[in-house]
């Protein structure tokens, strides 16, 4: 009969407990009176309450515990013959008169434990008798609890080694036999539940069975605690017999649970030494058994065991644990054709974790696991299942974490093949994990082959993969990714120029396929990486003659020129211009005039054709002037052409102040303060005069505008500002005059300086809007004073300037 609901369950339990309490009351009265007959009667009546079929296992367990506690007093009473005057042998017969079988067997077990305690008969005989007699109860729940009682009361009476009950005819084998037999019977009872009752309550039965499982599993715990079950006995008797029962019962719930128990209750070294037996059982389990979790748990335990103590590692080698596990996994995956892909990959992750812990030196094993994974994935579309993807990421991350040296992962031939099965998004995530790992470990990638493999691995970041639409990309994520690639490029290095050049060419090949959005991130680090090589060659005294292609700066510059050109089409002309100038400077340092000239030409072309924004022009022109000023490789002709161009651009800037600044900056192109530097005083002066003219023009324009403007204050303020600005331009130009004057430019005469000083002083005094104390001009004057007072040649030079 099945109770209708929880409430009924509670009601039945309460009634059962009340009845047990009542009978226990009489039982204790009988015990206090040392009345054996009454004690037996009331205990049997109490135990009759356990005959109920109305309770769920949980509730039944509560009821059982009540009876169990009472039986403890009865056992103590039985033990003390003086209280009841009946020998234990007779008592063993006497209790068998109880009317119902369930109370009878509980009483028999209770007396039986006392019987063993008395040592009047060999323990094994009593145990054998009890375990056989219990067959009389075939109702699963009642039978399981009865046998669990038998197991508990006999727990400390097993004739295992060192116990009181060992010796004579009793051996540890008897103890093992007893427990195994009880286990087998209990498992049968448990499995039989599955086939009872109508189909509708299957779910409920399943739940109840699950609750009961520990009663069965506990036998395995007892076995593991039996003293004297050494490896040999475990291998020859215990494990084969347990597994036989597990396989033969053909019940998936029992099989899964019992495999889990075996793995958890027996020690690691036993598992290692019986690995083959244990693994051979796996393919024999029902197809519905979650074998992968079983195997994962086993590998997890063994991995922890290996990690806990290095001394045990030889054991793993000796039993060829990897080979056995690997082939077992293969067999299980093969046997369970409909195992979801995530299941198979989870298994490979466990195996890989095991391998990395136990055989960190065996990269071939790692590759083998990845290879098996590829085999499983092959012929299938890219992974869609989120959980499977996660497992693949775990699989690929494990070697990176283990080796602290990403280069190791690059040697695994199956690594990229596994990555290919990831969807584009996850592929990129994985690529980022790889780059981060390289950064974290500061791993240097030092051969072209490795660069090739690496860029193949991270290709998701390097170029658009099929099916990724640009709109899907998050701008911030994209920039993070590309910056990561940029950082990575700096990690590629080899001392050997020839190899380094090969690496650079490989990088170039990959990044050039990245499309416009990526180039502006990837080309700059590439350029600097190549320029580093150029500098290295310079340090080694120029060209290095290699076997096939000589590695020359020329060749590298050629490569750079083509690369940067791509950037100008992106379009990122400003960035390209900067890079051209960097290259020009490097070519200058390598004494390669034509190449430096070519880079400048490219920069100028970009300036003329692509850079239209006036602010960008200002920035660009100053970069050009700065770089050009540092060039010493040019002969007169080339130099003239370039400086002429630069000066021309300067004078054509849109805003007067910008023009002025650029033009006076150009003055430095004609006066390089090196020993061999150009010193063309005349052209310096021309530049400065021109700058002054522009400043004056600006000043006049501002004044005119101010004079004509009405009372609009805002406008006046703007104009005042521009007047001040143009005056400031003159002040700054004065600084240039002073500079060249000091450097001994014969064309800069003190009269010109004197004139400027006076001009500025007058302006400051006449213009009411300008603060009379101009700090900039004041410090210039202080500087002139200082030079005058210095004495010596410099003092003389400045003597005639009056301030």
């Amino acid at each position, binding site marked *: 009969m099945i109770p209708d609901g929880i409430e009924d369950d509670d009601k039945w339990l309460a009634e059962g407990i009340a009845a047990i309490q009542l009978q226990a009351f009489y039982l204790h009265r009988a015990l206090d009176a040392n009345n054996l007959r009454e004690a037996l009667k009331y205990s049997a009546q109490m135990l*009759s309450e356990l*005959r109920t079929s109305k309770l769920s296992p949980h509730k039944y*367990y509560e009821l059982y515990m009540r009876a169990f506690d009472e039986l403890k007093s009865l056992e103590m009473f039985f033990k003390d013959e003086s209280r009841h005057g009946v020998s234990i042998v007779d008592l063993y017969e006497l209790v068998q008169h109880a009317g119902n079988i369930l109370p009878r067997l509980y009483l028999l077990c209770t007396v039986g434990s006392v019987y063993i305690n008395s040592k009047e008969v060999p323990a094994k005989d009593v145990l054998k008798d009890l375990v056989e007699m219990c067959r009389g109860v075939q109702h699963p729940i*009642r039978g399981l609890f009865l046998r669990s009682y038998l197991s508990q009361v006999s727990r400390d009476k097993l004739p295992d080694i060192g116990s009181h009950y060992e010796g004579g005819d009793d051996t540890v084998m008897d103890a093992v036999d007893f427990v195994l037999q009880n286990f087998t019977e209990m498992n049968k009872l448990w499995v039989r539940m599955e086939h009872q009752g109508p189909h509708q309550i299957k779910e409920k039965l399943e739940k109840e069975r699950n609750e009961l499982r520990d009663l069965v599993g506990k036998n395995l715990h007892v076995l593991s605690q039996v003293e004297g079950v050494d490896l040999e006995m475990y291998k020859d008797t215990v494990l084969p017999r347990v597994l036989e029962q597990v396989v033969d019962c053909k019940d998936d719930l029992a099989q899964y649970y019992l495999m889990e*128990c075996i793995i958890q209750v027996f020690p690691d070294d036993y598992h290692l030494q019986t690995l083959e037996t244990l693994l051979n059982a796996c393919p024999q389990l029902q197809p519905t058994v979650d074998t992968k979790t079983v195997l994962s748990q086993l590998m997890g335990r063994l991995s922890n065991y290996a990690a806990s103590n290095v001394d045990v590692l030889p054991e793993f080698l000796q039993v060829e644990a990897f080979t056995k596990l690997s082939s077992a996994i293969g067999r299980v995956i093969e046997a369970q054709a409909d195992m979801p892909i995530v299941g198979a990959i989870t298994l490979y992750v466990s195996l890989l974790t095991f391998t990395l812990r136990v055989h960190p030196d065996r990269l071939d094993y790692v590759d083998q696991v990845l290879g098996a994974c590829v085999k499983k994935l092959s012929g299938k579309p890219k992974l869609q299942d989120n959980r499977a993807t996660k497992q693949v990421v775990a699989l690929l991350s494990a070697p990176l974490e283990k080796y602290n040296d990403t280069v190791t992962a690059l040697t695994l031939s199956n690594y990229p093949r596994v990555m290919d099965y990831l969807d584009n998004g996850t592929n990129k995530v994985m690529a980022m994990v790889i780059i981060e790992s390289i950064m974290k470990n500061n791993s240097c990638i030092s051969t072209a082959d490795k660069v090739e493999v690496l860029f193949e691995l991270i290709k998701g970041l390097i170029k658009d993969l099929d099916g990724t639409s640009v709109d899907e990309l998050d701008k911030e994520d994209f920039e993070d990714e590309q910056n990561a690639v940029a950082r990575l490029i700096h990690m590629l290095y080899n001392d050997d120029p020839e190899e380094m050049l090969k690496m650079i060419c490989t990088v170039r090949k990959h990044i050039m396929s990245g499309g416009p959005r990526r180039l502006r991130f990837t080309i700059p680090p590439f350029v600097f990486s190549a320029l580093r090589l150029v500098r290295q060659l310079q340090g080694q005294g120029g060209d290095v003659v290699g076997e096939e292609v000589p590695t020359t700066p020329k060749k590298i510059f050629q490569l750079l020129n083509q690369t940067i050109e791509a950037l100008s089409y992106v379009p990122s002309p400003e960035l390209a211009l900067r890079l051209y100038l960097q290259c020009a400077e490097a070519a200058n340092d390598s004494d390669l005039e034509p190449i430096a000239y070519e880079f400048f030409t490219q920069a100028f072309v970009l300036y003329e054709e692509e850079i239209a924004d006036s602010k960008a022009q200002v920035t660009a022109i100053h970069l050009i002037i700065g770089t050009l000023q540092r060039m010493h490789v040019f002969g007169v002709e080339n130099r003239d052409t370039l400086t002429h161009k630069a000066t021309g651009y300067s004078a054509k800037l849109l805003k007067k102040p910008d023009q002025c600044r650029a033009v006076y900056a150009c003055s430095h192109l004609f006066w390089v303060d090196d020993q061999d530097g150009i010193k063309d005083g005349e052209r310096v002066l021309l530049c400065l005069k021109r700058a002054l003219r522009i400043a004056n023009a600006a000043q006049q324009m501002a004044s005119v505008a101010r004079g004509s403007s009405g009372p609009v204050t805002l406008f006046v303020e703007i104009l005042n500002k521009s007047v001040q600005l143009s005056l400031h331009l003159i002040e700054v130009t004065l600084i240039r005059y002073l500079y060249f004057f000091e450097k001994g430019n014969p064309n800069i005469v003190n009269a010109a300086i004197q004139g400027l000083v006076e001009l500025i002083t007058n302006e400051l005094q006449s213009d009411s809007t300008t603060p009379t104390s101009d700090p900039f001009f004041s410090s210039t004057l202080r500087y002139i004073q200082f030079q005058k007072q210095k004495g010596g040649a410099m003092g003389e030079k400045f003597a005639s300037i009056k301030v």
Partner: protein
Amino acid sequence: MPSRRRTLLKVIILGDSGVGKTSLMNQYVNKKFSNQYKATIGADFLTKEVQFEDRLFTLQIWDTAGQERFQSLGVAFYRGADCCVLVYDVNSMKSFDNLNNWREEFLIQASPSDPENFPFVVIGNKIDVDGGNSRVVSEKKARAWCASKGNIPYFETSAKEGINVEEAFQCIAKNALKSGEEEEIYLPDTIDVASNSQSRSSGCEC
């Protein structure tokens, strides 16, 4: 009707998986130790006779599964406990942090009559590991927790070396004995001396 003289003391050992509950029990009862980890399934007890104040008691020591998956039937065996031993591993912070959960869970499930004064004993086990170098829970910290929970007696043991195990269990026995948990005194509503109370069972005849 007076309460009977107590001769059986029930002790429950709780704590995370792998802290050494089974080892402590085995060391105390059988003087044996094994380094191998073997999970416990369900609840299992061993008994030991102890002498206390000239009286003999049976200590019923319940070892429990630390792994929840091996506790499928619930904890009905908590009922009637006289003392609860909370075990943690001094080398594992997590096992110490979980003591509170174990204690609360026990008080809820066992529902002793006087939870405030129910006797607990805390054991920090595995003090032998790595010469104490891998220890992460300090004695001070553990004692502070014990003090905050109503001055729970505290012991540091090594089940492996047998250090302090005997002392801890003596304290456990003493506290179990002093525990206020009296056996329920049951009085039936009516006592029918002639009654042959018939079975109410509606199950089959087995």
